[in-house]
């Protein structure tokens, strides 16, 4: 991957943010392709472990949304 590409790991709650990301697509909005979505059943599922792991794997940012 080129150096100017950043990677944002996005943990999206299935019920709200994941659906919102779907709707952004239906509405044909455009946004940078830097995010990699990981669907979680609820933001309550989020664990600090996941955030640390994502950074360790080279993520430039972690976004938890729910």
């Amino acid at each position, binding site marked *: 991957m080129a150096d100017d590409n950043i990677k944002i790991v996005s943990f999206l709650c299935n019920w709200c943010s994941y659906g919102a*990301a779907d*709707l952004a697509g239906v*509405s044909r909005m455009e946004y940078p392709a830097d995010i*990699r979505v990981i*669907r*979680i059943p609820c933001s309550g*599922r989020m664990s600090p472990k996941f955030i640390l792991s994502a950074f360790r794997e080279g993520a430039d940012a972690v976004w938890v949304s729910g």
Partner: protein
Amino acid sequence: MKKPRYVREDRCIACGACTEKCPGKFDDKYNADLKAQTAIYVEYPQAVPLKYAINPDVCLKLTKDKCGTCEEVCPADAIDYTMTEETLSIAAGSIILAPGFKPFDPSKFDNYQYANFPNVVTSMEFERILSATGPTMGHVTTFPKLPANPKKKKDKLLAQKRKDPKKIAWFQCVGSRDVNKCDNPYCSSVCCMYAVKEAIIAKEHAGGDLDCSIFFMDMRTPGKEFEKYYENAKHKHGINFIRSRVHSVTEDPETGDLFIQYVDEMGQIVKDTYDMIVLSVGLEITQQTRDLAKKLGIDLTESGFAKTASFEPVTTSRDGIYVSGVFNNPKDIPESVLDASAAASAAGDALAEVRNTLTKEFPVVPETNVVGDRPNIGVFICDCGSNIAGVVDCPHVTEYAATLPYVTVAEETTYACSQDAQDKMVEIIKEKGLNRVVVAACTPKTHEPLFQETLKNAGLNKYLFEMTNIRNHNSWVHKNNPDIATDKAKDLVRMAVAKAALAQPLKEEKINVNASVMVVGGGLAGMTAARSLASQGYETHLIEKKDCLGGEALKLWKTAQGEDVQKELDALIKEITSNDKIVVHTNTTLEGVDGFVGNFTSQLKTDGKTTALEHGVAVLATGAKALEPDEYSFGKDDRIIRTLDLDKMFKENDPKLDTVQSAVFIQCVGSREPQRPYCSRVCCTHSVDNAIALKEKNPETDVFIIYRDIRTYGERELLYKEAREKGVIFIRYDVENKPEVVVEEECLKITLTDHVLNKPVTIHADLLTLAAALVPRKDERLANFFKVPLNDEGFFVEKHAKLGPAEFATDGVFVAGSAHYPKPVNEAITQGRAAASRALTLLAKKDSLFTSGNIASVDVQKCSVCGVCISICPYNAPSFLAEGRFAGKADVNPVLCKGCGLCVASCRSGAIHLRGFDTNQILSQIFALDEVS
């Protein structure tokens, strides 16, 4: 008759390619005509089914046989210009009518100049202006009716004058409570509340400086939590409420500013200027609906609403035809939802005997055991026509997928969701012995169940599936960067494959549902629920703490529609006591409840003896009671009574009523006060109705109603009108300046400030009726038994204020009647039916109710008994095991678990696993973020 869509529903994939080049245009109804849309369109983005349609009036192909572009560009070959109207014949046992309403069209009102002034808009238009998906993307601006990028010269000039409004006014009752300028004598019930909401949101969008004023006659916020919302609007958001009906509007043609003139409460003429005026338009029944009613032979009221009786509030005048929503009188969302559930129950009751006689069993393919097998993954990459393949290099992604660990098959398909692709998928799974499947396509939120069904048909457990979204989250949002989108698709597929490799077959636990029901509360709502459930064949136990059924309704005289309550109530009680499916437990209290949905055990105490009752679901209908007022000298003189006491006098035909010369009603006694900040909903109509009865008894009697706002919502407004016509005198008071009551031997003296004269007036009365608040029982014990919440005032809090008004967040527990919020006879019965209807959805699935497989489970060996999971779970799913080898360790009840994962994330010992979203699966996705180099 089904109108043609000109688009085949079975083929349309809602990609939207057809709209891009469509030259036909027409007003977008969803956006209140503020936007144009193409001739081939989808009504709104959330439409169900999400399938396009062609408007034949503006389509060039259908009108002039030109164009045909959509047919050329449609990747799914879904366009069919030859479609015609179809007449479908459906054999049905019951019919439910829910045709809705149309907003009143104010164009014909020349005083408000809606048709001519660009800054006079309707509330429906303003609703869209506030919406993030509306024509201005939520930005409140003047001249909203102009196109975003105007082409006409005149429009361009006007558009330059666009500004952010500083002052907006709402005019209430436009097309409602009006028989002069239109024929709508009724109150539309919803406009006060939506105007308050629009004003608050407008201020939120525009910032604190925006000045919002609502011009109204009576502020009608009688719904649950509405009064608090109204108070907040006044005090927290600074919305101005002006009690005045504005006569007319003029405009500065240069700026578009609007001038109004009105008379304030002190009788002064006030002139003011506004940037925008919103007309709060009422709800109307369309001619089409009236025609439909005529065709079906059902009776309507003069205003076109379906005629229903208070004791059968969703049943039309014709057997087997039921009604719900605004067609059954103007109403808000929660009441419409209740109506819908109630109509379903009424329709179902009539058909109880033939339930399940037309159902067909689906053959089940035996499941292959894959536990312990090496993952053998098949990846299916969907092109979605050109939706994905037009941006993402799908052949390349497919090639890449084939190189990933454990992947034995990688296939590209044009439409993975089409029937032939599904059949092929089953074939490939069987042929290659796949034991995990990944589909890279659209969103799992709509398509996961479909593919899981395909897995089942191939004999695989449906949880051996993973879906990744390379359309909504990728090709659609990065369409100008195909290379980057292709890279992203590869990443997403790699992550999905990594997760799928760890997928395990999951079991869905069967939920055993005890087919009997407990209804707590033998009032109208409780009895109605019990009757409906019993008529559907379920054994129902009706618990009443008193010695007889009937509840507060026993004290009522007649309904707002004039029906004799005692006669109807008697009939209902007889029906209940003679129904062999209903066991009535009078003199009985509830002493404890154990268990959960499908499996409750309740302890009933009757005459000191406790018995256990096992039941699958429960309906709570414990009602409310009238307040004992501590003001207006209540209790100090027998001429000062409450509404229900007056009802008693009417019921018994008390001779004292014949001697009443002057009767006064005081409204809002104990309601809409700081200690009880809610409106009791029923009192205005009740007092107005009783005032009419007094006038009918003796037209010479002076009758006064002292009120704050008269809240005769819906067609109850007709009673208010009738009362005024009969000479009932209405005098308004402010809560800061309440009437004073002095008891004297010869008469009661009631003194208050008249708001027209602004002077104190004294009324000499020989009967004073206090419209006392309805107070909930605030039964905290009962709430704790079922783990259901009470609000600050002590009413039960339903699952969802709008969409779940008859059920609790606790599965298997339902709510009805005034325990939820004060309600009149017809609404209590509607909610009783609705609660039964919701309960039935569980009971009817008695043999086929399963939990999800995606739930938490405890590895008892690791559990350190810290109890965090138990304290944190919002659904009370975890508990400590009471017995067995692992007694004391935590265990998650699969029936109660919603699979949110809160306990999993909180477990300090790592003892809890969330099946399908387990820690190792999410970590595997994180580890697969980058390619292994």
